[in-house]
């Protein structure tokens, strides 16, 4: 601890107002161990009485060097790291990484695997939005929503456990398809959850949407317009709450999203309340997508037949020498996609999640960069909080739906 050095005001001189230097305004430290910061986020607030003059976000407490670690692993091993980034959207992270690998290797994905990916990614979106709904309600003292939202989230996590054996860190989506086919009871279980959810979402709405206390805390708070969102690189529900109907699932469809009929919910307000309405409407749209995907879920294989990238089934290894060789090669040195670089992106519950993947033709990725939505969202904190009360900062952090594992990587 001898070389520990506290940040001095001189280093932040260019970020705070002149009044902070004369002691007229107060610098207050919020976090990193405050429950309302949704993780280990530290905010340095410059306050004039109770009004926020400047907000300086300090991130990096959860920096684990994921990108550096991925560069030292094979393509299959590196995927496991992606689960741990945005721990509320592990399947979405797997999907984005796999899309990048598949683009790089020109790997095909069978239709059944595509449909399963869509179903799981949308269920993941619902579960992420449910957790967001619960925790951001809790921040604004709406205690009961949390309990209900967690109850429904449990049903979705049970589905993930059923298909992948894990509730959160699934690594279920693999390059070339999914890990294995879903069990026989999958369709009925998902249908059961889909039957329950719409009614339950109505219940949450009855608790919040017209609740005067909730409206008081969310309307006209943390307002952004479309232009500011574009300048700050914000996507996802935050952008859609400003009236811009931009959704990657429509703009640049992947995994067969173009086959499904759904709307992009938008709002005009651009404030915390508008973001709430957008996310609630998105849960309903996700239910529509899962229903359609489930109805026309094709049968067939769930992984590509390209043996250079996808291991052969166990039954083939006993009878085919070639299968044994492929299996051995894949589990000792992995696969080596051709040299080049690609950028693949998906719509995560928080916004655009991009993976920049560069290969030098060896079995390890040369460079993986994860362009994460939480990082972009946090950058908007100074703009969002300016001129608001300290108590509203909590609501604003909730409304941009950050996951610090995603921001710090």
């Amino acid at each position, binding site marked *: *601890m001898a*070389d520990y050095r506290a940040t001095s005001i001189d280093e932040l001189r260019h970020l705070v107002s002149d009044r902070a230097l004369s002691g007229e305004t107060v610098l207050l430290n919020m976090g990193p161990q405050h429950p309302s910061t949704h993780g280990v986020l530290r905010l340095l607030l410059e306050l004039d009485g109770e009004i926020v003059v400047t907000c300086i976000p300090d991130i*990096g407490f959860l920096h684990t060097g994921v990108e*550096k670690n991925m560069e030292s692993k094979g393509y299959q091993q590196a995927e496991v790291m992606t689960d741990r980034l945005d721990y509320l959207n592990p399947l979405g992270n797997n999907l984005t990484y796999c899309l990048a690998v598949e683009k790089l290797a020109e790997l095909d994905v069978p239709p059944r695997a595509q449909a399963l990916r869509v179903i799981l990614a949308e269920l993941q979106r619902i579960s992420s939005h449910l957790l967001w709904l619960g925790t951001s309600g809790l921040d604004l003292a709406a205690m009961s929503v949390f309990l209900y939202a967690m109850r429904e989230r449990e049903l979705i996590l049970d589905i993930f456990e059923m298909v992948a054996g894990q509730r959160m860190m699934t690594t279920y989506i693999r390059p070339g398809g999914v890990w294995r086919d879903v069990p026989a009871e999958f369709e009925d279980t998902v249908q059961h959850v889909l039957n329950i959810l719409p009614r339950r979402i109505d219940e949450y709405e009855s608790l919040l949407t017209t609740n005067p206390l909730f409206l008081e805390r969310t309307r006209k708070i943390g307002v952004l317009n479309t232009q500011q969102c*574009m*300048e700050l690189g914000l996507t996802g529900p935050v952008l859609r709450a400003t009236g811009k109907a931009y959704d990657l699932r429509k703009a640049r469809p992947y995994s067969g999203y173009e086959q499904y009929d759904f709307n992009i919910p938008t709002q005009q307000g651009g404030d915390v309340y508008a973001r709430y309405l957008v996310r609630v409407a998105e849960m309903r749209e996700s239910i529509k997508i899962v229903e359609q995907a489930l109805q026309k879920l094709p049968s067939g294989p769930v992984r590509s037949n390209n043996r250079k990238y996808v291991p052969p089934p166990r039954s083939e290894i006993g009878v085919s020498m070639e299968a044994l060789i492929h299996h051995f090669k894949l589990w000792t040195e992995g696969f080596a996609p051709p040299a080049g*670089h690609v*950028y693949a992106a998906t719509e995560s519950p928080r916004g655009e999640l991009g993976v*920049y993947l560069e290969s030098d033709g060896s079995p390890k990725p040369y460079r993986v960069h994860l362009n994460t939505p939480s990082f972009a969202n946090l950058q908007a904190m100074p703009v969002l909080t300016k001129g608001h009360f300290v108590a509203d900062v909590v609501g604003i952090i909730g409304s941009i739906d950050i996951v610090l594992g995603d921001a710090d990587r």
Partner: protein
Amino acid sequence: MTMNEMLQPVVQSLQERFQAQPAEFRGEVSLLIAPEFNLEAVLALRDEFQFEMLLDETAVDYWPQNEPRFHVVATLYSFTRNVVIELRFPVDGNAAELRSLVPAYPSANWKEREIWDLFGIRFGGHPDPRRIVMPYEWEGHPLRKDYPLGYEEVQFSFNADQVDRHKRYAKR
């Protein structure tokens, strides 16, 4: 209309003005542009070709190659045209510096802080040139290829001091 057709006028214009070298891989268009034109090229894309958003800015280290050692990669998106374009600026290893893109896109702020933090590439004119994810007193830039991943790094007489400097034990 294919993506390439949409980008044709953009690529042509940048080729003429900034000697950009286009490349296409898996349907993605990337342009290699000299680093001294980085801000002009990005401003031209923003103002003339409606590339409203900077999706991503990052770097790649090609160590031990030194000239250029890095590529700074900026990915731009146009809502109007619904296309993505990638710009790559080669940066020399000995003088790793280029101009900041913050005047064109404010969202470049943290992305460039991250590149400085993890790659040690300086951005001239950056409004807030601090580290972002590593501790303030950290020495070295972890995503460089000559930076060890972990474990105990072996010290030899030629690099004993250098290794000592970024070791994470309490000093004195």
